[in-house]
């Protein structure tokens, strides 16, 4: 009679999260601050990306106790991260009932060749991308939501901007091609032909496209929304700032009214403390860049 976990219910949840802010949290207190500020979902983690970056070592799926406590503490959806290619971590996250899994480059990859077959799961997945071809490969594997990789934990928006523009420009390019050019284009891109064709016809990704990686201020959120993001993920940007509750609220405010500069100004005015300390991405060695993980 009823069919559970269909593709439409997976993409449907991603659609319900539109126009919102998804916040990284590491404790139940932070999860409640996020919920009170108006977050549409939280990402339950052991360490935010800025700390993962600082502390080094292998970053794995979070301690399940942390995730389960956060699931108990809030009524909004709870997401959690699995390592790229680590389908057993993903199976565990599905078993405890998380609402969304992020197969994330922020954690240390478990497989240097293959991503998870996400169609095999009942729980929806979100994956990062740096361009359209990568987005379509992940959707081909079953991702129900795409986000830019940006440069997580950097507090620097430049990479997220690059990735969002790359996706939008490539979509526009595809819509201008003739039908007989699409197969060669798909081959050159390294993306599934059917999805290339769908994007060429519709002019948009088949799943919601969110922004992530480096968002630290209300204006950062407004920038990403105006560039075509449908929601924003804020990782270290909130709980590495001086006044997390005010910053969380301000970023929600700016995301809701992103097209109105007066409202973004009002949101920014409400901030009391400084934003997180940022990193200059240009001075980073390649192996320090998280966005290069995943293929």
């Amino acid at each position, binding site marked *: 009679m009823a069919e559970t976990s269909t593709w439409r*219910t*997976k993409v*449907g949840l991603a659609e*319900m999260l539109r126009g*919102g802010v998804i916040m990284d949290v590491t404790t139940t207190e932070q999860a409640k601050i996020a919920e009170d500020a*108006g977050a549409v979902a939280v990402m339950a983690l052991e360490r935010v990306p800025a700390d993962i970056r600082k502390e080094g070592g292998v970053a794995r799926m979070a301690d399940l106790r942390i995730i389960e406590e956060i699931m108990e503490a809030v*009524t909004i959806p709870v997401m959690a991260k699995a390592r790229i290619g680590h389908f057993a971590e993903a199976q565990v996250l599905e078993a405890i009932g998380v609402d*969304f899994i992020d197969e994330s480059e922020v954690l240390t990859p478990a497989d240097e060749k293959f991503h998870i077959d996400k169609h095999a799961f009942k729980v929806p997945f979100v994956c990062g991308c740096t361009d359209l071809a990568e987005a379509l490969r992940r959707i081909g594997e079953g991702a129900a939501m795409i986000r830019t990789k940006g440069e997580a934990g950097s507090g620097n928006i430049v990479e997220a901007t690059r990735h969002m523009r790359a996706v939008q420009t490539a979509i526009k390019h595809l819509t201008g091609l003739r039908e007989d050019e699409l197969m060669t284009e798909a081959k050159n891109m390294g993306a599934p032909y059917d999805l290339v064709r769908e994007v060429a016809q519709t002019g948009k990704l088949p799943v919601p496209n969110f922004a992530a990686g480096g968002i630290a201020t209300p204006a950062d959120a407004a920038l990403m929304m105006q560039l075509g993001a449908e929601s924003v993920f804020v990782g270290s940007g909130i709980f590495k700032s001086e006044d997390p509750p005010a910053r969380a609220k301000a970023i929600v405010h700016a995301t*809701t009214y992103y097209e109105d500069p007066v409202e973004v100004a009002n949101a920014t005015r409400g901030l009391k403390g400084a934003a997180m300390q940022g990193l200059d991405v240009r001075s980073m060695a390649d192996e320090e860049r998280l966005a290069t993980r995943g293929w």
Partner: protein
Amino acid sequence: MSKIVGVLALQGDFKEHIEALNEVEGVEARPVKTKEQIAQCDALVIPGGESTTIGKLMERFGLDEPIREMAAQGKPIWGTCAGMIVLAKEIVESDQWRLGLMDITVERNAFGRQVDSFETDLDVKGIDEPVHAIFIRAPYVREVCEECGVDVLATFEDKIVLCRQGNLLASAFHPELTDDRRIQEYFLSMIEE
């Protein structure tokens, strides 16, 4: 003259609602997120999304007043999923902010977490053939006040998932995510009444 239907665009699947409503003839659906925009509408949709987020934003930006005014003027308002929760007077085990316009008690995430989200066919009072319905982390209506004039229009496994009270309509599922426009047409017919 087209009827102007506002879709509250603070957060949620407002885009899908706007596209679905615009497929119906004689309708101009548009996103609304200010008092002025809401005041121009003949009817309003509160979409699916996160009910705590939508409620908080409505309160924070003072949109509850123009919406209450619409309801008092007899203009139709339809809440889907999160929208239904925001319309309800009672929410089981929750003190979250709400409009509280309908005399119903809703229970959030009543069918389980995301992995329990589902699709099914529903018999709807007043509509001939079954309607395909998508439920995502869906609520249901545990109780309605019949004396207050709440009419139950559909149930799934004895749980109320569609009901109407005068000019207010609430659905636990998402007609905007399917290609069937009969629920939209039903809602739009409420403008004429």
